[in-house]
């Protein structure tokens, strides 16, 4: 099996397959595994998803201040959510990683910040189960992820910093402003500038 448990976005390239094809294969595989969990409650499929995503969620939670034990509990909660709501996942609406990201983010709001996560799962609007083989959207979303990573890594460091402090450290605008000793307006302005560059990815200009 190529790659090792961990982040599907960061599989190691082997000699005979391009990193892009590997990522694409991994993405399709994740969607297939989700499908198996949804229609058959397939525990083996679930375990593969668990091995891929639970360590990522744990890492996310620890980055945002949870200790190892809490982070592990939260990773488990996230994966339980994946198990229970597998039938709501629709592969044409985005990758499994996107779904896990939103589940983990909402869990963090709920458990670490103790606030209500005001997110509506749009998948609930239609309960159609995904039975398609590799949808075209998987190709598009793999490309978008690749370009996104490129843009993020080439942002001016002051913009990259505020974006990472928000998404990875889980800091609010004010918290970032306090930490960097900057006016609130400057923090927001850097985020807007970063996003303007990132938008080029979606508009096919990168």
């Amino acid at each position, binding site marked *: 099996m190529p790659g090792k448990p961990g982040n599907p976005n960061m599989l190691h390239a082997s000699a005979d397959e391009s990193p892009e094809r590997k990522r694409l294969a991994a993405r399709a595989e994740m969607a297939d595994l989700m499908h198996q969990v949804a229609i058959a409650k397939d*525990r083996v499929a679930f375990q593969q998803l668990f091995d891929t995503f639970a360590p*990522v969620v744990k890492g996310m939670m620890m980055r945002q201040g949870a200790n190892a034990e809490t982070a592990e509990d939260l990773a488990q909660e996230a994966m339980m959510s994946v198990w229970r709501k597998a039938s709501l996942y629709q592969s044409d609406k985005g990758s499994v990683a996107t779904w896990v990201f939103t589940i983990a983010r909402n869990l963090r709001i709920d458990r670490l910040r103790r606030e209500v996560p005001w997110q509506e799962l749009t998948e609930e609007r239609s309960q159609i189960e995904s039975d398609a083989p590799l949808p075209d959207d998987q190709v598009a979303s793999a490309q978008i992820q690749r370009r996104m990573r490129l843009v993020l890594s080439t942002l001016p460091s002051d913009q990259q910093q505020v974006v990472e402090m928000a998404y990875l450290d889980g800091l609010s605008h004010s918290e970032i402003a306090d930490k960097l000793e900057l006016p609130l307006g400057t923090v927001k302005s850097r985020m807007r500038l970063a996003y303007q560059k990132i938008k080029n990815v979606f508009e096919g200009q990168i």
Partner: protein
Amino acid sequence: MIQHHLDDATLMAYAAGTLGEALSLVVASHLDICPKCRAELRQLELVGVALMGTIKAEPISVAGERAALARLEATDSEPDSAAVQGAAGVVVPTASNPAVAAGIRSDGVGPSDGIGLPRPLVGLVGATYDAIAWKRLAPGIKHYRLPLSAGAVGDLRLLHIEPGRQIPEHGHGASELTLVLAGSYSDATGRYSAGDVADLDSDIEHQPVVDLGSVCICLVASDQKARFKGLVSRILQPLIGM
């Protein structure tokens, strides 16, 4: 037609889950009716996914993994949670308001140019504007304070303002969002009608005034504790001076 949308920095914080409960509810309410901002949010969530790919993954303990797989057995014997139950805290009532469940905006009783209560609000204030227990804040201004979670800092309230009245503004330094639910108001930055969201920097005083002809109902959030006492006294001063 919605003309005033959420700022990119606000949506980014929302996508990252850092916006705070009060502001987040206003964002969620606007998103409920604005496809453009929903599309932006999806893109901003993809930024989060890309960054998630850069985090150092932490191995799960053997005991932890075993416990997780054991929980699958227990989970299966639980009754299937209602499909409409989303992430913790987001419940879309169906039995209580079939119109909402069907995606039809329940106009309730109110100005005809209103948009009805956005779904995130229905669980908090009931299905129609009638159900809201308004309290008098100042002449021509009624309000209803929405409760927040114990750990949340901030202020969230509905305002009901008569035509021609000035709307209380937040103080400097606070982040604030205003979503118009019915009627309209105008200020230095333009006219805000039902569905529009005012997401402005707090430095300037905009002096919003409700347009004539309709009551204006707004959802207003601040990331700081209630400042309305001070604000109301500022509004009343011109009246007192008369």
